[in-house]
């Protein structure tokens, strides 16, 4: 009996075109759009040598100190020091390059280096910082010369030999690639869309909703038994759909989930449980037609995906910091946070808290479903 219902519900669900579109096709399409539109943050922030020009005038020709300082961070410099791609041009050429956005700015020697740019920005700030540094060293040279002329030799050798006073310490092995939040929220949304299957299973045993429900209610079988085998079919479908989505994300779109396959699977199962049980709960407590139930399900799903950062990345951070409770009771956020913790943290505490919350949610949702549906009788339908 159990297997019979399971296999038939399984077939019914995967032939439901509408549900399959929303749970299966829609997330894959959306992920593809994300991939096309959302720039790879790693590349966006990555430092690229800045294109600049120097106006080749008499003062530049005569300023050996400036020439050598500039060339130490320009084209000939080793890769770790390379900051600028420098072109030596006439003033007209430099202006032309700037107008056409070929360079960030140019240096014009007129009683010391002056910088000409088109707008304020980060590359411009770096260029300014570099020139300021040059001026500051010149000033220091004068200061030292005044205070202790004997040390000049040593001072000059120290200028040539800049030391680094910084040691990098990292708390994690993963790079903080924040565009992943979009994909994590997308997976969370897909998990919650699985609620459609849960709702469909519920209306399928409610006599006032579907003819099948009426027929099932007549049958001399325990309703709980029927329900649990059909909800199992829904969960199995949901888990497989999410797995396909993950495979697509990982291999077709190159999205990184970290390397802990088993933990990823655990998250998928927990997420699917929450999704299906959430749908079942909505299906049981909302009185009304199927379209109303599904409408409420989809709008709550969209709202929780939004709050977990699917449309606007910063939203997740704002909610987590300003309304921490909201972050914990929003199932979409808990699912995406589990992926985030798995990818980004080297410890598992936060991950397991999330997984625990997810299973806790499913239990609560199923209990609510159970208590609303049990002993439901229909005087007339």
């Amino acid at each position: 009996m159990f297997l019979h219902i399971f296999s038939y519900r399984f077939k019914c669900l995967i032939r439901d075109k509408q549900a399959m579109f929303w749970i299966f096709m829609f997330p894959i399409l959306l992920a593809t759009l994300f991939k096309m539109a959302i720039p790879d943050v790693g590349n966006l922030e990555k430092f690229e040598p800045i294109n600049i020009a120097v106006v080749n005038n008499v003062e530049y020709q005569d300023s050996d100190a400036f020439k050598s300082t500039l060339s130490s961070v320009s084209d000939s410099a080793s890769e770790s020091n390379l900051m600028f791609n420098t072109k030596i041009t006439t003033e007209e050429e430099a202006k032309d390059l700037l107008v056409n956005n070929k360079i960030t700015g140019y240096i014009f020697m007129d009683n010391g280096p002056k910088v000409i740019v088109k707008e304020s920005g980060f590359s411009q700030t770096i260029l300014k910082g570099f020139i300021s540094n040059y001026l500051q060293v010149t000033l220091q040279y004068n200061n030292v010369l005044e205070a202790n002329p004997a040390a000049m030799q040593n001072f000059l050798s120290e200028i040539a030999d800049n030391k680094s006073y910084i040691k990098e310490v990292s708390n994690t092995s993963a790079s903080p690639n924040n565009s992943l939040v979009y994909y994590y929220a997308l997976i969370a949304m897909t998990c919650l869309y699985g609620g459609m299957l849960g709702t469909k299973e519920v209306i399928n045993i409610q006599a006032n909703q579907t003819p099948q429900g009426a027929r099932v209610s007549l049958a001399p079988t325990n309703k709980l038994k029927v329900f649990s085998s059909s909800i199992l079919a829904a969960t199995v479908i949901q888990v497989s759909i999410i797995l396909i989505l993950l495979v697509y994300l990982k291999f077709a779109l190159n999205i990184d989930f970290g390397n802990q396959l088993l933990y990823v699977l655990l998250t998928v199962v927990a997420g699917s449980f929450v999704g299906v049980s959430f749908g079942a709960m909505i299906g049981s407590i909302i009185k009304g037609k199927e379209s109303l139930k599904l409408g409420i399900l989809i709008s709550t799903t969209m709202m929780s995906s939004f709050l977990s950062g699917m449309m606007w990345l910063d939203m997740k951070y704002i909610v987590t910091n300003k309304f921490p409770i909201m972050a914990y009771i929003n199932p979409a956020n808990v699912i995406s946070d589990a992926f985030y913790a798995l990818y980004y943290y080297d410890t598992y505490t936060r991950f397991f808290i999330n997984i625990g919350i997810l299973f806790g949610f499913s239990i609560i949702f199923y209990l609510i479903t159970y208590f609303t549906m049990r002993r439901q009788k229909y005087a007339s339908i």
Partner: protein
Amino acid sequence: MQVFKTYFKIVKKNILSISIYFFVFIGISILISGQIPESKADTAFSSNKSPIVIFNYDKGSNISNDFEKFLSKNATIIEIPDEVESLQDALYFRKVVYIVRIPNGFGESLKAGNDAVISKTAISGSEYNIYMDLLINKYMNTAKRYINNIPNITNEQLNTYLEKDMSVEADVKVQTFGETVNSESNIKYYFNYYAYVIFAVVILGVTTVILTFNNSEIKKRHLGSPIKLSSYNFQVILGSLVFTLIVWALICLLSFPIYGSAAFTTNTVLLIINALIISLVVLSISFLLGNVMKSKSAIDAITNILTLGLSFLSGVFVPQELMSDSVLKIASFTPTYWYVKAVNSITSLTVWSSENISPIVNYMAIQLIFAAAILAISLVIVKQKRSSNQI
């Protein structure tokens, strides 16, 4: 005008599902308008300050304290408790891009000539990282050179020298070349998102009504009624147009209370005209969908793919300048791409010359061509359906 009246009766029945998008949009706009700082077009250069966190565990040392002061002048200091998780979160969401830790005894060991290092946590390979490294090493190397080359330098002397040196800054001139200045107002985001909302709301509203009218039994009844077909069609089209105009007007009007004085500019007039044009494109798309599609659920699916797809592809959500060229090439076959391009040009418009305005007019014209082409296709389909007796 019975048909026209019925049109709005149907809209009224579905007002809840239609208005969801509308309210979510308004909510998001209000949220975002408070979050993104306005950047003003300026002829003076302003340095970019990166958000950083400093933990000074060497409060006893003047050298370290002066260094902390130097950093706070050159970066925006964010206060975050020294807990691994909150720091990691802040770094991930770019609330900070660089975390500096000055270890206990740093000042003393720098002075004594021992190995003194500051630890940092940053986004490796990023430009913030390079710049902050540059700043810190510059300061430290300068300090170290004073310590090494001026014997018995006191901490006060060192600080005076450093403060003086570091206050010297390069002379940077911002030169504008008689073109538009890069100014960004949040109203730009509002009108970019407008494309998404108008697609969602109008397609949903118009197709719902047309689908109801196209129900074959209702249609047969209409054909049997003593009303001219042309008048019937006219009223349906008029209804759709009025519905679209109402949504357009509502959203445009709301920009005034949300953005206040920023919205009262001549640029806003152009933005509103541009918004009207894309609304006409959406109207023709809805008309097409309403006549081609047969079921409500198919329309829901298409609406979502179309609105999200167009929005993501053409830069409604993600700024166009961040997208790759190949994606933009594909996007140029969509009307929203031209809409967003027009919004961007309008918001950065400062000089009203024909040279600056004509590309905007071109972008609008392209959208109108889209509208006309789609409308033509849907009229052909409607005609064909009627002549082949498919009711």
